[in-house]
């Protein structure tokens, strides 16, 4: 069995609030897992614990068989986990390309010597990343691929979300964490974004995705399996069609729709 990500009893408390409580979760390599649950149910907290922003209060995470519990965000990224944020976190004053360079940080040379003195390798890496960036962005929005040197502040919200996804993808991670990538998009736009992501996934081969999403049609279409959280606990797991029929889920979540 080759679970790429395996969480056991993962828990996180904020003071007395149990934001995540005893979560057990496996994600197969190459799978797409939907993570759903009402507001405040701990979905984002799960990402934050996974990526090392908040230490877990209990439990453990294995990534590709290795424990990554308690590692810093930097190390988790280097191991091949990349994410987007629920609220856009692009560096708006920088160019789109600069933002993508940040996404590709682990493949770039940051030694003082090669950045300040002998800059041949630097130039090569810039050209290479630029070519990769164009190719990647072209999948999502062809005209945008020719505007990489414009400031990120100048493009509309939808394109910013796309660039955030590209920023997470450009380093070719093994696990991609998407936290409501469609916030602020229409349903069609969301579908397109997801199709584009799946296209990149099929190109990369082996990319694994966890998707937090409120739009159930999206979940239904792109995920193979879903986990439902409520008050930090997993209340259901299975294919969307199954869980949509589970009474506790309907009560906790779908009933609120």
């Amino acid at each position, binding site marked *: 069995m080759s679970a790429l990500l395996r969480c056991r009893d993962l828990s996180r408390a*904020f003071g007395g609030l149990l934001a995540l409580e005893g979560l057990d979760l496996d994600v197969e390599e190459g799978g797409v897992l939907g993570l759903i649950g009402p507001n405040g149910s701990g979905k*984002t907290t799960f990402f*934050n614990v996974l990526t090392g*922003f*908040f230490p877990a209060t209990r439990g453990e995470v294995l990534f590709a068989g290795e424990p990554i519990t308690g590692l810093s965000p930097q190390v988790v990224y280097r191991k091949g986990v990349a994410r987007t*944020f629920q609220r856009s976190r692009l560096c708006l004053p920088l160019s789109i390309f600069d933002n993508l360079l940040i996404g590709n940080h682990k493949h770039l040379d940051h030694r003082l010597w090669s950045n300040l003195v002998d800059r041949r390798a630097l130039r090569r890496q810039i050209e290479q990343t630029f070519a990769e960036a164009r190719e990647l962005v072209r999948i999502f929005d062809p005209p945008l691929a020719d505007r990489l040197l414009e400031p990120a502040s100048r493009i509309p919200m939808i394109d910013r979300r796309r660039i955030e996804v590209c920023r997470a993808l450009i380093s070719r991670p093994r696990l991609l964490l998407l936290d409501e990538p469609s916030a602020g998009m229409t349903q069609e736009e969301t579908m397109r974004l997801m199709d584009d992501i799946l296209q990149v996934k099929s190109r990369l081969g082996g990319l694994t995705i966890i998707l937090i999403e409120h739009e159930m049609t999206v979940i239904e279409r792109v995920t193979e399996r879903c986990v439902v959280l409520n008050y930090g606990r997993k209340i259901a797991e299975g294919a969307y069609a199954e869980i949509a029929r589970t009474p506790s889920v309907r009560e906790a979540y779908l009933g609120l729709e």
Partner: protein
Amino acid sequence: MSIIAQYVMNGAMLGMMYALVAVGFTLFFGVLDVIQFAHGDVLAAGAFAALAVWLGLTRLGVASPALLLALVVVAATVATALLGAAVARFLVLPLKGAPQLNVLLVTLMMGTVLRESIRLFYPGGSQPQLFPALLPTSSVALGEFNLRIDNVILLAAGTVLIAGTSLLVTRTRLGLAIRAVAQDEETARTMGVDFRRIVLLTFALGSALAAFAGVMDGLYYNEIFFGMGLLLGVIGFAAAIIGGLGNLYGAILGGFFFAALQTIGAVALPFASAYKDVFAFGVVIALMALRPKGLIGERTSERV
């Protein structure tokens, strides 16, 4: 024995002044999440306003010390309250949404404008100015220690003011509105609180407290000086941060804590009491390294 009493008394006076200044910082931070760095210089402006009014009144022949004192305090309070509200209205509110540091910078520069204006435009402002003794100067002998009546009065008045402020914030409708704005601006707005008005009132209130600290400083040292606000401002800021920005009682504790540090510095380094500020600021820096959000800690936690 008497020397210790002397140190304690001096520390208490300093602590009271710092606490009054720090409460201002913490109130401003509470409502707007900003540092109003001109606060110390607003204080100095208040002290100079007090001096100017005293000079004017004595020229006019007002001789009653009680009346003089009352008018002087009123003048300083009005001056600082207006200045503080003006800073909020013209510098802080327009920068809402800009990076926090810009507000710090703009008010830092406003402090320079006030400081330099006093130096350049107040007659003789570049030199320290004698401040009149408006309180009884007698003292009570307690063993070898002379307890000065004016100091007791100042401490008592400061205590009353701080207690009054805390009552105002916790018990009145205005205080409720201030706390509502401090909690969450949006909710406060939907509750019908006039956000701008509350901000201006809070800045006026916090600045008025500084006026008293300024007059207190003048009465205690018998002189005031155009640059007096800078150090008092930094110390008040440090005290507010030690106490956890936005926390009223923390600010008061922070003020007395800083005064205690200076006093300890002066006692422990008698051969080099000039180093007492080096010591006090050194401790503040070390504290920030150990507890980056202050001893008591700011109320918010960061979201990812």
